């Protein structure tokens, strides 16, 4: 089923007799439950774009490339830098903006510009009863009623099918540069990244790539300002022979690689995404039983490549944070759970919300609800 209007979509949901497998671009390697496939790809088009107000309203099935092209024409972009999962999970197709929102997909700039959920200003969605619900709007400051916008971001379709989203966009800076440090172990790298992120020089990316022996700090802005801040940043690491990468295309390629976890492309094994406090990352990473590691978000995001079926979460006891299974065989997803188990009190609230928004369990095939711990 591929509705072309919100009304059609609402009718399909209202008339559904069994579970629905909701699909955007199908590029993110999400496990689909049983049920009729409901595609959002027919709901396309930019409804409103006001560059002077930094706001974009777009139907959920619109391809991400269409959004990015329209923004680029005005020198703007999605600041949260959504990852492209295709290289990592080996999928084809074309990502949709609704899928980006439903999975709260954010890249390296998340630490400075916020996640997708932070840029999301409004949503329209069809809940499990087939009811169209609107929340938020298209203005940057809005505290009118509860923030269901945040609840829908990253909900993986568990509460409803997104039909339209409003996003805050930002100008593309004039240029960008990377400071590359070498010879650091994970502990030293996280400490160095914390130093950079704790400086006033507005670091917009902080990643450590052990395989390449590189620890990278990104600066963006007007050319003179980038040159100044890159220099000041380098002064924070005396004794390091830091490389100044200033070719904008090389910088862009490097951070696209970080964003898309390029070091893991083409390698066998399961892929996990672990969110922790940066300072907890070096010790934890050693215990994960990983064959390869990559650190983003100043250490707060660990990408781990593990042998198939390995339960990485066992190593996280006593460490606050969560691990999501991003790439694995369906049996592994089923056995270990895609999402991190929640404490019982939180799981009860999550479960309560799912029942209220999806009373007939139409969207229960999605992997939104982690099992209770």
């Amino acid at each position, binding site marked *: 089923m591929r509705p072309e209007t919100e009304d059609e979509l609402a009718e399909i949901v209202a008339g559904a007799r069994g579970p629905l497998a909701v699909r955007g671009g199908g590029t993110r390697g999400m496990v689909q439950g049983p049920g009729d496939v409901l595609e959002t790809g027919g709901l396309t088009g930019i409804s409103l774009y006001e560059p002077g107000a930094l706001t974009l309203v777009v139907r959920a099935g619109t391809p991400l490339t269409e959004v990015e092209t329209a923004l680029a024409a005005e020198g703007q972009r999605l600041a949260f830098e959504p990852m492209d999962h295709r290289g990592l999970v080996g999928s084809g197709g074309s990502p949709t903006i609704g899928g980006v929102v439903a999975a709260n997909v954010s890249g390296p700039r998340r630490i400075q510009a916020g*996640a997708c959920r932070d840029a999301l200003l409004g949503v329209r969605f069809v809940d499990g009863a087939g009811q169209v619900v609107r929340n938020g709007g298209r203005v940057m400051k809005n*505290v*009118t*009623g509860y923030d269901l916008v945040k609840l829908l971001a990253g909900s993986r379709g568990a509460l409803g099918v997104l039909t339209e989203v409003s996003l805050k966009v930002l100008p593309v800076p004039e240029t960008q540069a990377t400071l590359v440090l070498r010879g650091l172990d994970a502990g030293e790298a996280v400490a160095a990244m*914390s130093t950079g992120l704790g400086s006033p020089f507005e670091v917009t990316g902080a990643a450590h790539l052990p395989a390449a022996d590189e620890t990278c700090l990104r600066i963006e802005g007007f050319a003179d300002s980038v040159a100044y801040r890159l220099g000041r940043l380098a002064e924070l690491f005396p004794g390091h022979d830091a490389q100044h990468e200033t070719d904008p295309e090389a910088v862009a390629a490097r951070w696209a690689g970080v964003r898309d976890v390029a070091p893991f492309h083409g390698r066998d094994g399961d892929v996990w995404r672990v969110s922790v406090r940066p300072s907890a990352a070096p010790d934890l990473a050693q215990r994960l039983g990983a064959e390869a590691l990559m650190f983003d978000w100043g250490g707060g995001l660990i990408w781990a490549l593990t042998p198939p079926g390995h339960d990485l979460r066992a190593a996280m006891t006593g460490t606050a944070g969560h691990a999501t299974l991003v790439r694995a065989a369906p049996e592994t997803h089923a056995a270990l759970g895609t*999402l991190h188990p929640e404490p019982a009190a939180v799981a009860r609230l999550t479960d309560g919300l799912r029942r209220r928004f999806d009373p007939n369990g139409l969207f229960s095939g999605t992997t939104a609800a982690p099992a209770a711990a």
Partner: protein
Amino acid sequence: MQMPDPDSRILSRRDAIVERLRGCLPADAVISDPAETRAYECDALTAYRCAPLAAVLPRTTEEVAAVLKVCHDEGVPVVPRGSGTSLAGGALPTADCVILGVARMTEVLETDYADRLIRVQTGRTNLSVTGAVEEDGFFYAPDPSSQLACAIAGNIAMNSGGAHCLKYGVTTNNLLGVTMVTMEGEIVELGGGHLDAPGLDLLGVICGSEGQLGVVTEATLRILPKPEGARPVLIGYGSNEVAGACVSDIIKAGVLPVAIEFMDRPCIRACEAFAKAGYPDCEALLIVEVEGSDAEIDHQLGLIKQIARAHDPVELREAGDADEAQRIWLGRKSAFGAMGQINDYICLDGTIPVSELPRVLTRIAELAAGYDLEVANVFHAGDGNMHPLILFNANVEGELAKAEALGADILRLCVEAGGCLTGEHGVGIEKRDLMADQYDPADLEAQMAVKDVFDPGWLLNPAKVFPLDVSEARRSAQLAAE
């Protein structure tokens, strides 16, 4: 503004309820003497007052849990209170409620500069969070005008913003985790030092839920390194339209100022008379502030001045030093105080798309003329968050009602222009009855469904946010169940 009649069954059990509260709290933490509970009869929306049944001032999360268990058990509504600075009546009591104040919970629990976070008890004031880290070069970004007094608990309840959120975002963008107690007295941990939720983003819906889903007792907040420097520029224009166009051009040019503030002529005149900041007497005044090193500031302000000049300003003044910067901000920061000197006023908080600024300002002036009232405008222009101040005389019979009616018309105008009722103050009781102007019944039903899950008995701050007739079935179901 109507509030529900107090439940006589609760009022008649007052002594027994107070006794149970005393049983779970230190002696000085329960206030029930009517002379003392009056201190909690209102917040900053002072037109509405009602003393609560009792007020409690716990010091720990465990004490909060104990209080909520008792109130849940007794079926007593609970109104959480931070510092009581809400302009929307978010902490307004009813006679049958217990005020749960977090004012004594002010500890800093943890500071971690490597991970760039601070964990505090939520009674701590906004400014004192920055105070705890500024010597080490950090700050907490959301800066509501009431930041000297307002508590983090209230900031989280209302998802407060401030003048600098164009660059740094509002509370929800700077909140990493909370310890929250449900109405049933269960302690729930959400988020922490790590980013994003493992499943549904419950933290995201707690922030801005106006104390209706749980009582937040501790918060993990993101702190940021202080910029090297900041400098404002003052730009005066002969019309609101031109000032609005200048704002839009600045944003489009790719400069991202930390603040773009807008004042109209009535506001400029009042501020000038009050603060003597040296403002020009013109139709519209912009204060634009940028951050960075001296050279970076020079460059950004150069671009901004170039854009400003293209719109033919009547005044263009850059701060030469810290003293001049302070003078430029002085008038703006004393705007509400200046208004308070000459009049009573209602401060509105609607947000509109920036492109609608000139049209909405014109229409506000027309509406005000129709009511024979004066409106001064001062607001965060970069994000379209308006603060029309409706001036009136509370001593004249009927003036408050007239001012409220004009306020409602202006907020409906904001919604009609593609904006919303409130950008950073919250709904409370003030905008409660206008919610149906912004949201369809299904939209409100979806929001109330969230409260059903967190607080099935509708005991937490129940008469706020949703129009009373819309929430009545849920609130009376609670009464019937007793």
